[in-house]
């Protein structure tokens, strides 16, 4: 199955896009590479290694944090810009991924496009209402993370198209986010991930987004949990109700790691806890 003949190391996105366009179905992009090595190599003649194409920056713009597609998970976990954007939950999700060795290699873009059910970053990006920027030789388009993760992201990309950047809105005033992973060991695949974003207005919750991962092949937003929060005053009972609503609505698949009943139970508990953490940060009085 391994037809690989060569690697290309483009120095810019434009060069990478040109190589992909010229290679047609015989060239494919390479991010960190973990997934492709484990898959036994690509069904392509040329791998276009994006690691030198200038896509690894993490920067703060006016309203958003910008994660270059080739920024590593470790760089995201340790980025000052992530914290400055009020996105501590994003740093938590990145730090929860696998081990240091793999965080040094896995990239933000690879974690999304090569999506695995237990990937930790995607549910957090769902809760943060991120947008992904895709480029091809023909131009650029932006897709909301909800839409991007509605099917496997690999199938969302058109021929010759690259994920170049993930844009995450800054938390802003009276808002906070948090992430929790539950696994058998700190470096094991998640059995359930929970991510939340909460914005307060006066004493009430004005905006809340909740997402979970590792329960089925794709991460999912929990809209019933969100509905249980809207307009309510944050507190133990409200978070417990949201957790119960989330556990009831979540789609849960079975695999050898845990039964669906166990995962559903985890989902309720983690959603409650992650909401407490996010709301605690929102109430913490971060300057606008």
């Amino acid at each position, binding site marked *: 199955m*391994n037809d690989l003949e*060569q*690697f290309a190391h483009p120095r810019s996105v434009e060069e990478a896009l040109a190589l992909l366009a010229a290679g047609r179905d015989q060239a494919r992009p390479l991010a960190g*590479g973990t997934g492709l090595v*484990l898959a036994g190599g690509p069904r392509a003649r040329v*791998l276009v290694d994006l690691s030198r194409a200038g896509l690894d920056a993490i920067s703060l713009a006016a309203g958003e944090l910008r994660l270059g597609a080739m920024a590593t998970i470790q760089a995201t976990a340790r980025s000052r810009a992530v914290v400055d954007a009020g996105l501590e939950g994003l740093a938590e999700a990145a730090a929860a991924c696998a*081990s240091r*060795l*793999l965080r040094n*290699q896995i990239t933000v873009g690879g974690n999304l496009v090569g999506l695995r059910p237990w990937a930790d970053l995607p549910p957090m990006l769902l809760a943060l209402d991120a947008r992904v920027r895709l480029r091809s030789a023909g131009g650029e388009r932006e897709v909301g993370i909800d839409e991007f993760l509605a099917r496997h992201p690999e199938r969302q990309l058109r021929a010759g198209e690259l994920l170049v950047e993930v844009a995450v809105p800054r938390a802003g005033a009276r808002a906070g986010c948090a992430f929790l992973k539950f696994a058998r060991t700190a470096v094991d695949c998640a059995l359930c991930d929970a991510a939340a974003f909460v914005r307060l207005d006066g004493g009430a919750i004005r905006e809340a987004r909740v997402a979970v991962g590792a329960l089925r092949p794709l991460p999912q937003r929990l809209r019933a949990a969100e509905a249980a929060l809207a307009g309510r005053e944050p507190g133990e009972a409200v978070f417990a109700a949201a957790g119960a609503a989330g556990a009831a609505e979540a789609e849960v698949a079975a695999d050898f790691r845990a039964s669906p009943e166990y995962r559903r139970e985890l989902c309720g508990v983690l959603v409650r806890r992650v909401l407490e953490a996010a709301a605690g940060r929102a109430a913490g009085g971060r300057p606008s």
Partner: protein
Amino acid sequence: MKLDVRLNGVPRTLDVSPGAVLLDVLRDAGCRSVKRGCETGDCGACAVLVDGVPLASCVVFAGQVEGRSITTVEGLGTPDRPHPLMEAMVAAGAVQCGFCAPAMIISAKALLDENPDPTAEDVKHALDGHLCRCTGYVKQIEAVLDAAARLRAAAAKEGAR
């Protein structure tokens, strides 16, 4: 295909198959400290430094490191002239069968290059991808903290000259 790398400080041109994995290429090049454990990125025994960053070489295509500097334990010290991390691992009894030790030293080297005075918690995080089935994990943490102290003392002595 040809692969140009700097391996333990020496420029090398290696002849590799395009789909080759870095672990195999390094072992074929004589770096037997790089261990084949799980081959899925989970055990950490194959860790090497690529431009100073520790990676699990079993999940890296050799083609990805074109032009990069690779460091294995062979590049850090020898039995006659051991690196302080090696001395500290032996002194702490952090090595039994020895299979995991070279890669742990590699990750510890990256940590100490970045942070000469780490806490035990920093060490745990830096070594979180390494499995040891003999000793447990306490002695390696002691060893890295001891090596950090040795290196700081050596640097202070150097600075005083």
